[in-house]
């Protein structure tokens, strides 16, 4: 047996993730993902008023507050057969789009970039060479004085000893491939992105009333009536334009510049062949036509239409009472009683194993871009093809850690560009006197429904059953469960478990390469790495950003 590297949980927010990999001959031989916290919120929701569900579910994740509220509200709307007004659809699209712009920029620069960018190396960069690099790659070239000032700031920060986010990085690791100037350019944009994301977050507050926990969603529409004014829309539009400019001229050029040094990662971290999207961003009130279409890719075959009837959850490897794989409407949350034991041969996680037609499916940016590409969604093929061409890699490179990270950047642009059209539609509606944002409705005695949503991390679904006007059953299947879920009854592993197999590891005490793939899925957690070497009995503990 090789070394086992464990990535331990240290957060109480949803996710609470532990990942263990077995390393043999410098490569990952096997991998297990374990959700370390039981999420019993479904039990808590039973017997409550369906209109209140979204207030609870938006607290179940530390990062994705709005998207859970949106799925919940949609599930109740489906159960109660409510069609929301056009303005409500547009406002929801705009807020959801703003969430993608914010989250993906933060992910690339603040949660993922330091897996590829060596901050310490940036200290030794030549600012003049950085200027030349910037002139060649950036849509917004910057001068050597600017790079010098960033370098000085960074030196002062490192010198203060308060490293914060840069603490415990694997600086100097042999897997870092960028020249010092590229590291300096990326680090400069890390700082710019901090400023930008603080602004981008304000888009939520304009129609959302309140950030970070928006209060504008109600079953039947939105309550942002007071914000449907020319001035408020202009405020939103100004931040959107600034964000779009950053995506076009900084984020995407940086993505290409960094990726060009890591083309080998176009063949690592991509063992998955099935992908699922629920789709999102409806272009019409009937929600038939979506900017990011729904679909299922089975073993890299052409895209099939997706139906939620084929979604099941398997509990074979979870700490749950034994039972058959069940559709969420029949879903149960019955934890085994007493202490649980982590055993990768038996049960090892609180996550259930979601399956589509019996198959493990990756969800998230890569799934969405592949499905949109396969369904020939407007503009997607041209953008993907030109990106692959610029990098000089083939289409197979999409199925990888690099492809996943690139897909996230590309969809940021696809969604961001579309926000302009929704703003124009909203303005046109208001100009003609249509300010309706809410459809009144009455609670039925009984009802069943589901709310689908494709959120920054992937396909999210909430299922609700109403009896006597109260919640009888509530289940949700979240993106991290799809991606980080365990093996099923047939022994088929979850997407991240599979993706990690084969990853080269230069140094088991610094498993930077494993983190690259884990972070490419954007888990909403911070991790500590805990490495156990059974041969030397040495234990390494390293905090990870």
């Amino acid at each position, binding site marked *: 047996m090789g070394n086992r590297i464990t990535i331990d949980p240290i957060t109480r927010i949803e996710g609470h993730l532990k990942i263990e990999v077995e390393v043999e001959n410098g490569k990952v031989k096997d991998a297990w993902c374990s959700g370390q916290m039981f999420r019993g919120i479904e*039990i808590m929701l039973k017997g409550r008023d369906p209109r209140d569900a979204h207030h609870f579910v938006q607290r179940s994740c530390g990062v994705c507050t709005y998207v859970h509220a949106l799925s919940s509200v949609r599930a109740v709307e489906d159960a109660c057969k409510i069609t929301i007004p056009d303005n409500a659809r547009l406002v929801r699209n705009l807020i959801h789009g703003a969430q993608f712009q914010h989250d993906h920029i933060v992910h690339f620069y603040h949660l993922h970039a330091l897996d590829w960018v060596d901050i310490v190396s940036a200290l030794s960069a030549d600012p003049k060479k950085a200027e030349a690099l910037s002139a060649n790659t950036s849509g917004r070239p910057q001068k050597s004085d600017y790079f010098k000032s960033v370098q000085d700031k960074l030196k002062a920060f490192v010198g203060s000893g308060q490293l914060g986010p840069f603490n415990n990085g694997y600086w100097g690791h042999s897997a870092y491939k960028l020249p010092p100037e590229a590291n300096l350019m990326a680090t400069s944009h890390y700082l710019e992105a*901090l400023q930008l994301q*603080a602004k981008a977050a304000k888009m939520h507050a304009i129609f959302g009333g309140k950030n970070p926990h928006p209060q504008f969603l109600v079953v039947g529409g939105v309550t942002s009536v007071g914000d449907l004014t020319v001035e408020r829309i202009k405020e939103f539009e100004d931040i959107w334009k600034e964000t779009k400019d950053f995506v076009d001229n900084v984020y995407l050029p940086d993505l290409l510049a960094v990726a060009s040094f890591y083309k080998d990662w176009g063949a690592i971290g991509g063992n998955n062949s099935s992908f699922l999207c629920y789709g999102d961003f409806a272009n019409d009130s009937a929600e038939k036509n979506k900017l990011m279409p729904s679909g299922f890719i089975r073993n890299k075959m052409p895209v099939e239409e997706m139906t939620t009837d084929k979604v099941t959850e398997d509990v074979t490897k979870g700490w749950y009472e034994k039972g058959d794989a069940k559709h969420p409407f029949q879903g149960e949350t019955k934890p085994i009683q007493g202490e649980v034991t982590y055993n990768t041969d038996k049960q090892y996680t609180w996550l259930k194993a979601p399956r589509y037609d019996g198959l493990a499916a990756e969800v998230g940016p890569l799934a969405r871009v592949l499905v949109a590409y396969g369904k020939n969604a407007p503009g997607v093929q041209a953008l993907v093809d030109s990106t692959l061409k610029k990098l000089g890699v083939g289409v197979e490179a999409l199925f990888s850690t690099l492809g996943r990270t690139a897909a996230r950047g590309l969809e940021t642009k696809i969604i961001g560009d579309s926000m302009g059209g929704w703003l124009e539609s909203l303005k046109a509606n208001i100009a003609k006197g249509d300010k309706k944002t809410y459809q009144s409705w009455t609670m039925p005695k009984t009802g069943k429904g589901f709310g689908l949503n494709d959120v920054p991390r992937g396909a999210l679904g909430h299922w609700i059953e109403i009896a006597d006007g109260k919640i009888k059953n509530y289940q949700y299947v979240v993106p991290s469960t799809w991606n980080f879920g365990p093996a099923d009854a047939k022994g088929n592993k979850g997407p991240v478990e599979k993706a990690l197999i084969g990853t080269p590891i230069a140094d088991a005490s610094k498993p930077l390469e494993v983190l690259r793939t884990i972070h490419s899925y954007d888990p909403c957690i911070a991790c500590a790495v805990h490495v156990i070497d059974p041969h030397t009995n040495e234990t390494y503990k390293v905090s990870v950003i």
Partner: protein
Amino acid sequence: MLTPLYKLRATIDGCPYCFTGDKMAEKIMVLGVGNILYSDDGFGIRVVEKLESEQIFPDNVTVVDGGVLGVNLLGVISGADRLIVVDTILNHGKPGDIHRLEGDAIPNRILGKNSMHQVDLLEALSLCRLMGSVPQTVIIGVEPQDIETLNPELTPAIARQVDIVAKMVIQELDKLALKTL
């Protein structure tokens, strides 16, 4: 009911305590953090909910329900000059004990705490430093009894401290108001 002082400040024109409309006034943020689904972990949120429902604050004071957003709170806090955080704090005390941390005490005392959103908050503060604008921070917190059970209610002993800590927040604001005059 808490003191209605802030209502007066926000509404009376020419009041010497009133800093509405003063664009130069320091931006003060009251930030509650925690998870309302886990009993006493929701303490910080319950305090800011109480403050929001009973007080009207002047324009330069923002009250924020930060939930468990951690580092994503950066966008919210980076604009503040002063930050008053309300949270649960594990500090080897009895449930219900109230702690007030300020300045150098913050990193050392909090690092030992078994709470991720707290560490994330510190990380957010350190990123603020990198952006060149760190708010001066005070953390007021209660020692919790139960942060494990999935229950949207505080335990009775901790629920009793909500009023007291809400008053402490008002006192902090009073101190800051005097400083700015």
